[in-house]
């Protein structure tokens, strides 16, 4: 039995004629300690998939099992890093993290909570901004707070929904390393949803493409056999990296083309030419 299991999961929205099947027949097995990345186009139902796993939504049919038990509700065991940070704007960095720590460790003394907050804020190197509000922080800093908040609850599994999508390349690289560090140090399980194939290869043990929705379903998995710790600069010359990357991109391109050729309606354009009004104006003068 796998650590996290999705068996024949389907999710539909709407009723009657307006039903759209967002996810169709999703089967996913993640083992304990594994780092799995799901790669897909925007709008392919990635966020819905994440919400099913963390318990914010329930599948229409099929089952989501976490450690053998069906996921009914959200849980402290599964920490979520949201795509849009989702920090509470009226709280400072400290207070945002405090909210999570207090919930995760309700019986611990104040001193423990205070220390833990400071430790995690330090970990994402935001100690200098600990009493600032999200509005005063840059996008990368906000996402780091979001990371600190999710990890401070000490979850067994980290679920990341395009956590680095909106960040610049440098901040992105740094945060990737930070997340990998934490995952490695505490031997947690991680699920990363991303639209960046390189990011997936750099971070994950397995990459599974999500075929675009409606009726999104998972494609064949790609194993990444590059030894850890991986060196980002050397990665570009790694033969195995290049091969996997090409394979995945080829696969994604293929399903992308499939999608566009399926949905495209051919419109017949009328044969018209633009009229040159300038010329007419001059002539009439």
């Amino acid at each position, binding site marked *: 039995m796998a650590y996290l299991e999705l068996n024949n999961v389907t999710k539909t929205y709407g009723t009657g004629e307006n039903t759209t099947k967002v996810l169709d027949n999703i089967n996913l097995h993640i083992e304990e300690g594994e780092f799995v990345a799901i790669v897909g186009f925007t709008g392919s139902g990635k966020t819905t998939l994440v919400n099913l796993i*963390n*318990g*914010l939504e329930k599948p229409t049919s099929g089952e989501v099992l976490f450690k053998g038990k069906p996921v009914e509700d*959200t*849980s*402290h065991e599964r*920490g*979520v890093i*949201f795509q*849009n940070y*989702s920090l*509470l*704007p*009226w*709280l400072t960095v400290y207070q945002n993290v405090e*909210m*999570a720590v207090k*919930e995760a460790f309700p019986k611990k003394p104040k001193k423990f909570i205070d220390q833990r907050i400071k430790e995690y804020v330090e970990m994402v190197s935001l100690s200098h901004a600990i009493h600032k*509000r999200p*509005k005063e922080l840059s996008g990368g800093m906000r996402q780091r707070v979001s990371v600190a908040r999710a990890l401070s*609850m000490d979850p067994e599994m980290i679920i990341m929904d395009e956590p680095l999508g909106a960040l610049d390349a440098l901040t992105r690289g740094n945060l990737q390393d930070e997340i990998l560090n934490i995952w490695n140090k505490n031997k947690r399980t991680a699920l990363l949803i991303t639209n960046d194939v390189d990011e997936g290869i750099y971070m994950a043990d397995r990459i599974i493409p999500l075929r675009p929705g409606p009726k999104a379903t998972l494609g064949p998995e790609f194993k990444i056999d590059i030894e850890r710790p991986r060196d980002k600069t050397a990665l570009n010359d790694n033969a195995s990296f290049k091969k996997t990357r090409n394979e995945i991109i080829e696969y994604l391109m293929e399903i992308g083309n499939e999608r566009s050729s399926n949905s495209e309606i051919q419109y017949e354009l009328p044969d018209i030419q633009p009229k040159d009004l300038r010329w007419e104006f001059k002539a009439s003068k």
Partner: protein
Amino acid sequence: MKDSIIKGFRFIGLGFFEPLVRLIAGEDSRKNSTEVLKKIIAPIASILLFIGIWYSGSKSLFNTEANYKIEKVRKEQGDEEAAKMKACIESGDVSCQPNTLPSPSQVWASYKLLLKDHKIISADKDAFKQKTAAMNEKRVAQGKNPIVYTGRPSFVDQIKTSIKTVFAGFLLALLIATPIGIIIGLSETLRTSFNWLIQILKPVSPVVWLLLVFMIVKTLTKDSNGDTSFIISFISVGLCSMWATLVNTAMGVSSVDKDYINVAKVLKLGSLQKIFKVILPASLPLIFTGLRITLSVAWMVLIAIELLAQSPGLGSFVWEEFQNGANDSNSKIIVAMFVIGFIGFLLDRIMLTIQKFISFDKNEGI
């Protein structure tokens, strides 16, 4: 020093003084002097323009009224009387002034007169207090009610009464509307079931509220000899003005960003924690917008309600002056108009400042 002054001005919503402060501090004089021109000189010019139009308008109205009066006398009593009347009007005699829109200077004079009147009445009151102090002590010792001053209230006293009424009404609205708004906002069932009631009661005129409150309070206070007119007017003010807060609170609470709700779910906050730590702070900006509308509506309906409830405030002042028809009544009414407007503006500024202090949305209010 300079920065803290600017910060202070901004905080109380008078940010337009910023360039003046910077100019005085000798900072970038060219840029700041154009800013001063734009933000301070231009508004002052518009005020002067307003007073100018008012002055010429009142002058032409005065002339029309005076000519009409003279012609009327000429027709009824002949040329001789008409000439007398003309002389009388020109001399500025109080007995024969035409009754029309007062000029700015007349209004200013009335304003000073009202303040003087206030000083006289206050002195009177103090004297009365001193005179009756000893006697009142005895009366209280004997278990009788002390003698209180029952003279005419001054203009300033009336302003105070009005502000007291508005605050009591506003507090009532706050205490009724916010909790109900939160409860209604949280539950869709309650929202749909009470929506009709809110939609029907919201547009009801202040006068009707007053009558309704009057019916109820009159019966409830049958035996007491307290200040019923105050009770009636503040309850009516509260009932008239609470709808904006009620609707805004319900809307704010029901439309909290889904991301925040998801955070609350993922962190597994309890329902009370969820309400007080996530939903309420998130809806504070909208609640405050509602409260600001409530306060301005309260101040607006107050005048009408006081006028009808005979509560001794600005509303009854205006009405009494109108009924009075004395020579300076019109200018006193205009003074009251400006005072009402100015206090309304101040109240809104106070609310805005409190909002900036409490709410996370630090955007400049409109």
